């Protein structure tokens, strides 16, 4: 289980996270929703130690990642994978090499096994073997996301963090990516944190939903509970009311 306890973060005096408390259940998909610029990605980056908090803790099975350094931090990071908003695929490597990268860097698997695993992931993401020869700048937005998902999955991590996995995609591709997240989660049962603002699609993959607003979690529950939540901010966001977006 991942526990976020009283997490605070400000950039240049501007408060972004103002006492976040959140529990991310093992083996479940927790979705953090909230309007753009509210600090969802900042929260996600705290979970893997990319950003250090001003105050607070992030406990991963009892270990505070904000206090870890060196080998211990590296060992903990090996349990994670991240699917970044833009995919963060390495420009200089082909699709195949991008997906194989974590295996080449962190395992001593023979080449035949690496090839087999990469092909398996390409197939799982509905990508042809031919696509493996392409470079990231030759891919569409949807393909990039699927390649990034394949790379995130290749080492079968315990925890995967998804930073706005469908931003910029058309509705069919949005549903495809969410379907793939649900499918891979069903197969591997990893713990997932998904940062997104795609309502109502995210409810289809979420076990739990948390809403971030003004630096705090203002609502937490199952998708059904969130949809019935009495907080006007939550309802306004779910309905996509313009007055809320301007607030």
């Amino acid at each position, binding site marked *: 289980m991942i526990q976020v306890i009283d997490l605070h973060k400000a950039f240049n005096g501007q408060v972004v996270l103002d006492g976040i408390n959140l529990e991310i259940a093992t083996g479940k998909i927790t979705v953090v929703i909230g309007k753009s610029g509210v600090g969802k990605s900042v929260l996600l980056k705290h979970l893997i130690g*990319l950003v250090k908090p001003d105050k607070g803790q992030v406990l991963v099975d009892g270990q505070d990642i904000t206090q870890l350094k060196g080998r211990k931090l590296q060992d903990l*990071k090996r349990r994670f*994978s*991240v699917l*970044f908003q833009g995919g*963060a695929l*390495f*420009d200089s490597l082909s699709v195949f090499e991008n997906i194989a*990268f*974590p295996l080449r860097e962190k395992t001593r698997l023979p080449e035949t096994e690496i090839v087999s695993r990469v092909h398996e992931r390409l197939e799982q993401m509905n990508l042809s073997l031919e696509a493996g020869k392409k470079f990231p700048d030759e891919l569409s937005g949807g393909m990039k996301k699927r390649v990034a998902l394949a790379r995130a999955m290749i080492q079968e991590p315990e925890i995967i963090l998804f930073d706005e996995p469908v931003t910029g995609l058309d509705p069919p591709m949005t549903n495809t990516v969410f379907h793939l997240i649900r499918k891979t989660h069903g197969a591997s049962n990893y713990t997932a944190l998904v940062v997104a603002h795609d309502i109502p699609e995210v409810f289809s993959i979420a076990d739990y939903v948390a809403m971030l607003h003004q630096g705090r979690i203002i609502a937490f529950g199952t998708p059904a509970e969130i949809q019935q939540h009495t907080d006007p901010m939550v309802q306004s966001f779910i309905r996509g009311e313009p007055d809320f977006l301007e607030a």
Partner: protein
Amino acid sequence: MIALIRYLGRWVLNWVQEAGSMMLFLLQGLALAFVPPFRPRRFLQEMNLIGVKSTLIIILTGAFTGMVLGLQGYYTLRKYGSEGALGAAVALSLIREMGPVLTAIMVSARAGSAVTAEVGIMRITEQLDALDTMAVNPMQYVVMPKLLAGLVAVPLLTAIFDVVGILGGYLVGVVLLGVSSGSYFSGMEQSVVPLDINGGIVKSLVFGLTIILVASYKGYYTEHGAEGVSRATNQTVVLSAVLVLAWDYILTSFFM
């Protein structure tokens, strides 16, 4: 007046802070060369980017520099009846001064800007963060091989520049203007001493490290998207050129 002093004070403090931060960046980058995993392939890739791909521009620059030195040197020395010293004049100018400095400035313009753009784009597209989350140290994977390649490639490019420049001087002085081939090379042989060559090598080592340090540092700490990459690339070329010339003066004063 107080505002001006305050502004200057802030500028100096920022400058000192940035210089310190750059030095720590360098030490961290070089220290990681001794920490496994070792990736010789990454080093070779960077040697190709920084060294091999700069060879043509270095040959062209070296050739024309040598030819100009041959031409200017010939007409200057002829006034004193010393055309025979042309080889020595060309070689000493190139080995001591022009070879290391011009090579460094050309590498900074070609490879330094490319390094900043590459690392800066990796930063803004979260590729460096992606490495970090895979428990791969981005300093070790991206920056360290570039620093080592700069340290090795720039002295080699300087040697190429010097040799091509000497041949360029030969072409103009001996082939076109009729200086004796024997006096061109014997003058060179008598005048150039190991200290000149060592000085040139030390300069090119320092310049190579400086250029790639500035380029990697500016790229690594790029902010604010494409505009930030553009600004960082610009800063790299300007700062590298200024630092190369400043180092040149300091090192020359040691070797004279």
